[in-house]
């Protein structure tokens, strides 16, 4: 017991020693000084691209996810296998290697097929995020659609609706309210994972922070501001989703 407390104290001392050269240096992001204000403006300037990448990726993922989910609900085994293979494969690939594959690998594959399709960091990031997220979105759709009672589909069939009409007018409008909260979670995931776009040179929030760290040597303070920036984005998304849910709530069954 005495030895363990000694070890704890010793490790604290070591940690304190490590930090001895690192005192706080909030001056780098002090808005009252001209230099600090310039730094803040530089950091925030990545916001636009972070939002743009995330929103476009989320929209693609929402459409792609539905297209992947539908064969998973098919009666035919072949279609379900297509869905399973896609979901299991895409879900298993870590984001960073996938990003490299899309950004560096895809152009090589296209070139070997005689096509010249350049992929810039902007679309490289979007494709990667959308692809990676679509596997999760697909599973959310599948669960949401399956949660709607089978009788709804049967009733739609007996009043002559086609498969597409049944989905559009009967199943999806009921499923969407159950799907929305987990989809919002995924959107938050996309926003945070968009930080990876910094490694292929996208000038978004994280890249700006990294660049400033290199010139200012104050990672702790700069990354603290970075955390705040993501926090604000995520809180805004949460508020938006709650507003949407309230609006939809009005036409759900009581």
């Amino acid at each position, binding site marked *: 017991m005495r030895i363990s407390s000694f070890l704890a104290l010793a490790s604290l001392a070591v940690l304190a020693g490590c930090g001895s050269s690192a005192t706080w240096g909030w001056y780098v992001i002090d808005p009252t000084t001209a230099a600090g204000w310039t730094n803040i403006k530089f950091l925030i300037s990545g916001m636009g691209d972070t939002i743009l990448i995330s929103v476009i990726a989320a929209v693609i993922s929402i459409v792609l996810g539905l297209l992947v989910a539908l064969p998973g609900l098919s009666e035919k085994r072949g279609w379900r296998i297509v869905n399973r293979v896609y979901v299991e494969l895409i879900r298993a690939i870590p984001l960073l290697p996938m990003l490299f594959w899309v950004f560096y690998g895809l152009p090589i594959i296209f070139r070997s097929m005689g096509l010249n399709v350049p992929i810039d960091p902007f679309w490289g990031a979007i494709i990667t995020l959308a692809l990676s997220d679509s596997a999760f979105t697909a599973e959310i759709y599948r669960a949401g659609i399956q949660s709607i009672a089978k009788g709804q589909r049967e*009733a739609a069939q*007996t*009043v*002559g609706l*086609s498969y597409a009409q049944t989905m559009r007018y009967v199943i999806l409008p*009921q499923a969407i309210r159950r799907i929305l909260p987990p989809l919002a979670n995924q959107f938050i995931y996309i926003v945070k994972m968009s930080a990876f776009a910094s490694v292929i040179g996208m000038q978004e929030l994280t890249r700006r922070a990294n660049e400033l760290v290199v010139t200012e040597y104050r990672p702790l303070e700069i990354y603290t501001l970075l955390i705040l920036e993501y926090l604000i984005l995520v809180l805004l998304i949460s508020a938006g989703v709650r507003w949407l849910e309230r609006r939809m709530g009005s036409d759900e069954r009581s």
Partner: protein
Amino acid sequence: MAASAIELRGVNKWYDTFHVLKDIDLTVASGEKVVICGPSGSGKSTVVRCINKLEPHDTGIIRVFGQEITNDPRSYSAMQGDLGMVFQQFNLFPHLSVLENLTLGPTKALGLNRKEAEERARRYLERVRIPDQADKRPSQLSGGQQQRVAIARALCMEPKVLLFDEPTSALDPEMIAEVLDVMITLAQDGMTMVVVTHEMGFARKVADKMVFMDGGEIVEQGPPDHFFTTPKSERCKTFLSQILQH
């Protein structure tokens, strides 16, 4: 003799190894009212669900107005307008108003415009005696009202045959009569009906033919006066005595 509306010849169906329908032969003539009864698990709902292709059958022939219904989706899209269906659990669309429940099929599947579909919907709401509930949601109605909306929804497709799968089984006792009354009116107006039900009073009143099923087969079928007074099989006698003793 009237042309047969529905014809089943040697229909068999299995759930894996469980033989749910055994050599079902059944003919429903145009204008005829057929009541199917039997203990639960006897396959009576499955018969109805195979006729309108909510479930596939494995062997045998099902014809609707002479046209064979196979498990190929193209074969039954043509007959779908001919068959209306009323479910035990109503299966109304909870996110739509009563009126929208009624107009969805006619506008999307039959190509009626909104005005025509609404006129038709109000006409049938009148017929099931709830003309004033058009703008409510299904969840705001009682069970009996919901089932009458479901009947109106089926009628809006103007089917030639109405199939009922235990339409009163999910209802509180005091609401059963209002639904049966509507069904009796439909029967009197000449609608061809196939009704799976335990309501023997209703059956006596409207049925042209009684069908008794047990263990996946049709044990007995015939006109109701014979059926109720002199059932031929033991199983049918037992069933009737159980269901009629109260």
